[in-house]
């Protein structure tokens, strides 16, 4: 799917799709929920994407809400769990605001060392569930 119209004066870039484009979706890719349901899978890491069973789809959705609000993403912009915030134009203040928004939404506290490791929706969701689990223990 071409990202740029042929008549755009800015279309000097080639069309590259690093990740599959999901058209018209407001929420995160549903494939995450399918994978998450399979509890027997161990966490797989490939060069391209990280499949994890730890974060539930509801958590991922809620993280997406916070990120969308902070970065003022247009509704048609897909937000994939593994897209880096920086690729969406987030700077360090945005990332800190996102972390704070997540702390308030989930009633958790994220240590500053961990905050630096939150670079995608997936990483945020995984950390949140870990912290909630720790809190409950």
């Amino acid at each position: 799917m071409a990202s740029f119209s042929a008549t755009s004066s800015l279309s000097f870039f080639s069309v590259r799709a690093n990740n599959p484009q999901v058209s018209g979706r407001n929420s995160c890719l549903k494939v995450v929920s399918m994978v998450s349901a399979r509890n027997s899978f161990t966490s797989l890491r490939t060069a391209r994407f990280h499949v994890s069973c730890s974060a539930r789809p509801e958590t991922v959705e809620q993280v997406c809400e916070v990120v969308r609000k902070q970065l003022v993403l247009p509704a048609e912009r897909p937000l994939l769990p593994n897209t880096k915030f920086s690729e969406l134009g987030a700077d360090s203040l945005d990332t800190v605001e996102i972390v704070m928004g997540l702390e308030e939404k989930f009633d958790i506290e994220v240590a500053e060392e961990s905050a630096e490791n939150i670079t995608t929706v997936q990483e945020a969701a995984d950390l949140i569930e870990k912290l909630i689990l720790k809190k409950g223990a």
Partner: protein
Amino acid sequence: MLSYLCRATSSMKTHCFNQKFFHSSFPLAPVQLPSHQETHFWYILPNEVKNASLLNQYLELLSPHEKENVFRMRGEELKKGALLARALVRTTIARYQVNPQVSVTSLKFRKNIHGKPEVEWPHNDDGHQPLLHFNLSHTSSLIACGVTMNSPIGIDVEEKQRTIKNNILSFARRYFTHHEVELLAAISDPEVQRQEFIKLWTLKEAYVKALGRGFSGAPFKTFTLRYKAAAKGSFHLSGNSNSEASEITVDSFENASDFTSKWQFAIFELAGSHYAAICRGIPAEAEGSVPMKLTVWKTIPFVEDKRVSGTDAVVRIGGLFD
């Protein structure tokens, strides 16, 4: 307007049709290296760069890895911003002509052990690495690069109009120090409070970037920035200043620095639209309170450079600088 697609990763150069009609051959004006007291600050306004073939000219300066990173950005404006940032840093460093073996396209970058980007110069016979330091900062509407000799530097720019999504005092309580929270809490006007918050953020961010250890290397809660009235009579400042001479100092609760224990700060309003903060490290044995000599250029590489320090594009807010 004719449009075309240029392949980013192909090693073959695709000469785009429009380039025959516009290819800026205005060379990069060489600049003398900053002296040990000087800070050079270069910035570009993305809104002023619209010409597709100029943008392609910039694209051709980048390494394959940099091009990949540009294309990873989601959205045209973000791609353009990422491209201009790399073009700015490459062309800026190239102007100083530190090493005849190194051109704007052959410049290599790496990260130091803490993750801070630096230039990787070719090895000299005597093993000495040039002492040019740089730091980049960017917003969607302005991208800046600061340059010094022999001093670590960090810069941060933010739009003056930037809105904070969280409650400012909650944010400050969570991330800033007690003294800084008190400073902000004492401001009753929410708009002024928001502005002061952003100025404080840029100064803190500039310090962390100068330290070069990343956000977790110097958490914001572990150091306090203060404005102090400067000692009178110890120096002369240039006339273009509305604010009182104030020095900005940092008190760190941890032993933050390895080799420099003095940090100079400058914060100013830039192009009427942004706050810009600079932090540079100076040797502990340097004389106290020597103002930073700041030179600011607005640039469109290969098209025009305009020195704007001393004009109303640069309005001091705090810190000792000329």
